[in-house]
């Protein structure tokens, strides 16, 4: 059976139009853009320039506000480390939201070695940042705050504009990880009022191995990778030309097809949400019901373990993701890392029952038939797993006794 890919939060396939744009830059226009004085360097140099322009346009920025990196992870590292180091005269205190991605969260130790202090801002049960908690925690000496634009595990879109406006008043620098939003929903860095934002093309049909950090003009940033004079000195290393060109083309297509894609995803997502709600009991949606990414449906099911559900969906040709500890730490070297997702814990799902979390993230090429197929197979899988579960058995037993 043809695979049904509902895991666009993990990554997306490269659009064929994007790949076509990249192809000339491997074997033909292979030159080093730093070699501007020879013909071989000229065309790649221009290609990088044009791609930068397209990406800037996607998020409403200027061309020279875009810094290429190898991944969203690197962009997040450049933002946190680079902003903190370059502005450390302003303070040593950094705040992360409780639901940041690992590529923000796991910098905490390194930042502490550099002499910074990290504190965390709470979210509510929908995963929305708690503004009161933020206001309390932005004390004097706070130099930097990082709140992602949208969380890819639970789909919630954060009130970034409101946060930015508060932080601007307080003179605090604001980084937002836009890996889940830019290229997926309309993003305007000026409207949002952020200082830096991560942009990740493999989340919108662009290639892996390339990403960018938007850096507002006249915000100071230190580099974390030093060397040659590429990327205005913010990030050294010979450019990944095909990657950059593909990124640019993916950005152009995302902008051109944005409305169409969002509309379709909204519709498919709504059907999926409603279908699940009506066919599976003891199912709990995660994230905000309205302020969420289109085509993103996430939930956990009582008495169903996430990895098993994911494996059964996979056997039924459906690709999904699970925040289940077992699933997401599968490749850990040992079991010490087996913790329930910090995101689910942060939104108040009790750790002992959140192992059934599943995320369906739809993409531009999914169809209603695929959604209907998913809805037709999932109840059977859930039943099967519950029938195996000793927890469900005793719950049913209790229920029976209660009903008497």
């Amino acid at each position: 059976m043809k695979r049904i890919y509902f895991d666009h939060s993990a990554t997306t396939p490269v659009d064929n139009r994007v790949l076509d744009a990249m192809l000339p830059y491997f074997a033909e226009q292979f030159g080093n853009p730093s070699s501007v004085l020879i013909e071989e360097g000229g065309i790649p140099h221009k290609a990088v320039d044009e791609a930068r322009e397209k990406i800037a346009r996607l998020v409403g920025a200027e061309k020279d506000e875009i810094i290429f990196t190898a991944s969203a992870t690197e962009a997040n590292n450049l933002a946190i480390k680079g902003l903190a180091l370059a502005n450390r005269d302003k303070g040593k205190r950094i705040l992360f939201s409780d639901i940041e991605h690992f590529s923000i969260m796991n910098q905490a130790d390194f930042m502490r070695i550099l002499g910074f202090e990290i504190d965390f801002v709470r979210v509510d049960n929908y995963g929305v940042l708690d503004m009161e908690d933020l206001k309390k925690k932005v004390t004097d000496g706070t130099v930097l705050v990082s709140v992602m634009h949208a969380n890819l595990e639970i789909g919630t879109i954060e009130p970034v504009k409101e946060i930015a406006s508060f932080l601007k008043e307080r003179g605090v620098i604001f980084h937002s990880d836009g890996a889940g939003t830019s290229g997926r929903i309309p993003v305007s860095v000026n409207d949002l009022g952020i200082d830096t934002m991560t942009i990740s093309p493999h989340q919108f049909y662009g290639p892996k191995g390339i990403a960018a950090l938007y850096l507002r003009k006249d915000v100071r940033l230190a580099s974390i990778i030093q060397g040659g004079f590429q990327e205005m000195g913010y990030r050294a290393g010979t450019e990944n030309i095909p990657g950059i060109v593909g990124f640019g083309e993916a950005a152009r297509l995302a902008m051109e097809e944005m409305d169409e894609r969002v509309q379709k995803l909204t519709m498919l997502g709504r059907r999926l949400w409603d279908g699940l709600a009506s066919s599976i009991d003891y199912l709990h949606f995660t994230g905000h019901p309205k302020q969420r990414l289109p085509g993103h449906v996430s939930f956990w099911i009582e008495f169903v373990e996430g990895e098993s559900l994911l494996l059964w969906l996979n056997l039924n040709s459906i690709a999904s993701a699970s925040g289940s500890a077992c699933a997401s730490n599968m490749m850990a070297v040992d079991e010490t890392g087996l913790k329930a997702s910090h995101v689910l814990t942060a939104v108040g799902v009790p750790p002992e029952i959140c192992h059934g979390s599943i995320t369906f993230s739809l993409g531009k090429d999914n169809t209603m038939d695929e959604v209907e197929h998913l809805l037709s197979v999932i109840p059977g899988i859930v039943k099967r797993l519950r029938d195996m579960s000793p927890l469900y058995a005793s719950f049913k037993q209790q229920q029976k006794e209660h009903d008497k």
Partner: protein
Amino acid sequence: MPGPYSDKVMDHFMNPRNMGEIEDADGVGEVGNPACGDVMKLFLKIENDRIVDVKFKTFGCGAAIASSSMTTELIKGKTIDEALKLSNQAVAEALGGLPPAKEHCSVLAEDALKAALEDYKKKKG
């Protein structure tokens, strides 16, 4: 498909052996690993110190289900003494190996078996 699980694990995950409950079990063991969320329950029917029937119910990941299933196969028909000698390594080996992060699942299966045999001894007095 290349994946972290052996074919054996996937086979037991998809077609678990001896899944279910034994109403009048002679020994029942239930263990759980709260860190990972797995819960295993093993039911034994014992006659003349021999395990004549065994069933399990498991809430857990692929490795947990496969480990439970494999354990029931390995002990069915065995004497209590033989069953007590079953190690988690033996379970993992019989499954064609488990990913490092999943080895605790076979430990859990061993623990469930020990708990069920304990329960049997206690009940027998």
